């Protein structure tokens, strides 16, 4: 039963991380550049949810709608401030401009909301179901459902609609995409908007249980980066699986002494701090063995 509970908790956490990583990898594929503001967009989403919550007094799941609209706008803005002016420069220029944009967001949030951690409204209401020994909180269940719905929606957008095909075509070969009539700059800007919307949604989902404070961006950024590295740089399913792996590890590690009786005498070693150390050691080991990440690219050059 404990294992089942841990699995449920890991999926709830991993689903939210997956949204952050997905947004990151979509922008990566569209621009070949790393958007280092992705973590700060999660933080902005958290504070956005907080602001809409105190303004409207509605449950989080309803706030998602205006929040996504605002985050789409912020994504377009980010593209026009931090990407288009430097897009013909080497990709590391975009590292710097997106880091700068992230710092602006972080300090802006500090100026408006203050440095203390805040909790956003719950998605539906507080409470839980007890199923056998399993505790399923409404919040965690709603997080999974919302994240899954967004991921499925994204998948349908990319595979079933013309705009989705055009977004993918633009990411794969921008010049050729332009030469068949695709407005490529608009597509790239739209990709930033989608990436920001996903990050913002994750901010809403995560900031109930984990709070939001202006300096949270770096932590989420690192997790997205690691998830995408682990999953295979540029791989979209890999990003989701990488996020789930990180979440599973974060949830399972502190519980190991309870799961495995032989470890019980060393229970004090299974802390948050050691969890982080072990996670990164494991990532190093994995990358030594598989520098391309766990999942090879779906797209290869034909031999």
């Amino acid at each position, binding site marked *: 039963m404990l294992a089942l509970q841990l699995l449920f908790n890991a999926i709830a956490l991993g689903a939210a991380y997956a949204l952050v990583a997905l947004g990151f990898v979509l922008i990566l594929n569209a621009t070949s550049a790393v958007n280092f503001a992705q973590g700060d967009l999660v933080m902005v989403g958290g504070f956005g949810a907080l602001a809409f919550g105190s303004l409207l007094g509605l449950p989080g799941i309803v706030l998602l709608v205006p929040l996504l609209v605002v985050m789409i706008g912020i994504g377009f803005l980010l593209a026009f401030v931090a990407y288009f002016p430097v897009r013909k420069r080497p990709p590391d220029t975009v590292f710097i401009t997106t880091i700068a944009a992230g710092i602006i967001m972080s300090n802006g949030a500090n100026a408006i909301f203050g440095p203390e951690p805040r909790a956003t409204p719950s998605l539906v209401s507080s409470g839980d179901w007890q199923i056998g020994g399993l505790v399923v909180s409404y919040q965690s269940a709603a997080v999974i459902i919302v994240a899954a719905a967004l991921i499925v929606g994204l998948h349908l957008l990319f595979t079933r609609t*013309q705009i989705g*095909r*055009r977004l*993918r*075509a633009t990411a*794969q*070969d921008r*010049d*050729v*995409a*332009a*030469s*068949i*009539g*695709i*407005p*490529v700059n608009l597509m790239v800007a739209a990709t930033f908007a989608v990436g920001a919307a996903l990050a913002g949604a994750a901010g809403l989902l995560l900031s109930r249980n984990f709070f939001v404070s202006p300096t949270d961006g770096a932590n989420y950024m690192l997790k997205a980066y690691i998830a995408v590295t682990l999953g295979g740089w540029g791989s979209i399913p890999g990003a989701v699986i990488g996020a789930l792996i990180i979440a599973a590890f974060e949830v399972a590690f502190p519980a190991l002494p309870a799961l495995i009786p032989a470890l019980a005498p060393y229970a004090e070693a299974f802390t948050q701090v050691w969890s982080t150390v072990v996670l990164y050691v494991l990532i190093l080991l994995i990358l030594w063995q598989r520098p391309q990440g766990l999942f090879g690219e*779906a*797209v*290869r*050059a*034909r031999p």
Partner: protein
Amino acid sequence: MNTVLDIEQIEVRYGGVTALRDVSLKVAPGQAVALLGANGAGKSTLLKTVIGLMRARTGDVRFDGRSIATLPPQRRARLGVGYCPEGRRTFPGLQVRENLMVACWEGRAERERRVEEMFSLFPALRQKADHLAWQLSGGQQQMLAIGRSLMGRPRLLLLDEPSLGLSPVLTDEVIGRIPAIKQTGTAILLAEQNAAKALAVCDHAYVLQTGKVVGAGPAGELARSADVRKAFLGG
């Protein structure tokens, strides 16, 4: 002369190097024109300048009598210029069907019809419809790239080196589709190193050498001309 494409004395630079100098060229509606020349003569640069991936420093590019020299590629494509790049460059992570669909700007029904048209033009693509483009052979990718460039029903198709890397049999199969494409009313500008095969399917031809037009004329005449034979057809 009524022209679909009228290139007037363009000069194009590539970095600091002049890739095209004082090049003029005309394509009449429904005409197939071959652009011959060795590797590096400027054929690809010329086609890229027509679609807008490169810009002419001087001179003008007119499509249907209207100057398109300052328009971005996507505007030129929507006006009716089709471009099939050298090296095929199909979208590797899109299915064959998606590669075609993404290049069409009509509604769903018309889009499906045109996909079917491309499958009739290149039957080999039909069995591969749900494969990702990177999984296709070189010849199939070339057919897909041509199909993609025809999805917008262009009035001018720019075809860059379609025989590159293909076996002679496949080259014949791909170049052999040109008369069928021409029959639909699409004019063609075909850049090809394989002069004999290009001249066999084209009405008119230009010869480029180090960025300049050094010869032009009806395809049949050029095929018989001693100079062209010496330069491209092996004597």
